[in-house]
């Protein structure tokens, strides 16, 4: 079973890896976690995104959550913000779509137009 003692080892490995990525610009992924978002499956969406990033060991992407943005009927909502590019908002995201958003948009820079609400 995993224990807190594992963190010593992890710390050393992660610190070495961090030297490499220093100064790299970060992509941000934001998941809507208002009550509607959660009820519509935002937890599973965020979980799928983190899982997909972990599989690819993508260290230059941060995932965070935001509260209600007043768009109940479009939840779950996911924003992808790439450095130097406008924010792209996806609506009605489910775990499967979330994984594709990571692969196509986050990794390969190809937003999936048909799932996008606004591109400001």
């Amino acid at each position: 079973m995993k224990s807190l003692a594992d963190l010593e080892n992890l710390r050393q490995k992660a610190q070495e890896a961090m030297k490499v990525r220093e100064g790299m610009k970060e992509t941000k992924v934001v998941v809507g976690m208002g009550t509607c978002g959660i009820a519509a499956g935002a937890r599973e969406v965020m979980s799928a995104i983190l899982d997909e990033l972990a599989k690819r060991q993508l260290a230059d992407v941060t995932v965070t959550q935001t509260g209600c943005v007043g768009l109940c009927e479009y939840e779950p909502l996911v924003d992808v913000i790439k450095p130097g590019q406008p924010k792209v908002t996806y609506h009605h995201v489910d775990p499967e779509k979330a994984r594709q958003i990571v692969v196509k948009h986050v990794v390969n820079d190809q937003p999936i137009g048909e799932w996008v609400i606004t591109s400001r």
Partner: protein
Amino acid sequence: MRELSLHILDLVENSLEAGATQVEIEIREDLKQDLFCFRVRDNGRGMDEDTLQHAADAFYTKRCTRKFGFGLPLLKAACERCEGKLVLESKPWQGTIVTTTFRYSHWDRAPLGDIATTIFLVLAGRPDVKLYYRHWVDGKSFEFSSEEVKRRLGPVPLNHVAVLDWLKGYLAENIGHLYGGA
């Protein structure tokens, strides 16, 4: 909501919206006393007397765009359906405590569900927040402190991809263990 762990996520999100920098989550499952309870305590903005009076009232908080979601009345109704109750304590600038009780064996009580993922996602999304988690299942207990992990990690951020991977497994294993699982 179909899992109590989703209600807990909703409460934590309310806390974060209220500017909390510290959140404590406690869950007690007591089969002998046929009691299921949980509590979320934060150090956020809190509420004044008037807001507090109506916060768990479905009539006043129907609109989701309010400062705290309409998740609270939903949770209150869920407690009351299960012979339990929701108690809300808050003072302006002194944080908020939400305490819930349910009859454990009540037919309508939703399962706790995937609490490990709930905790994991709060840590992943808001690594800056101090998160304390305590979970009792009859005689067994599990405690987690984000600050203890951060102390051990030193300069490595809590949301580093390798750390997240570890956290996910650590929480799932240890919480699973409470139920006699691996």
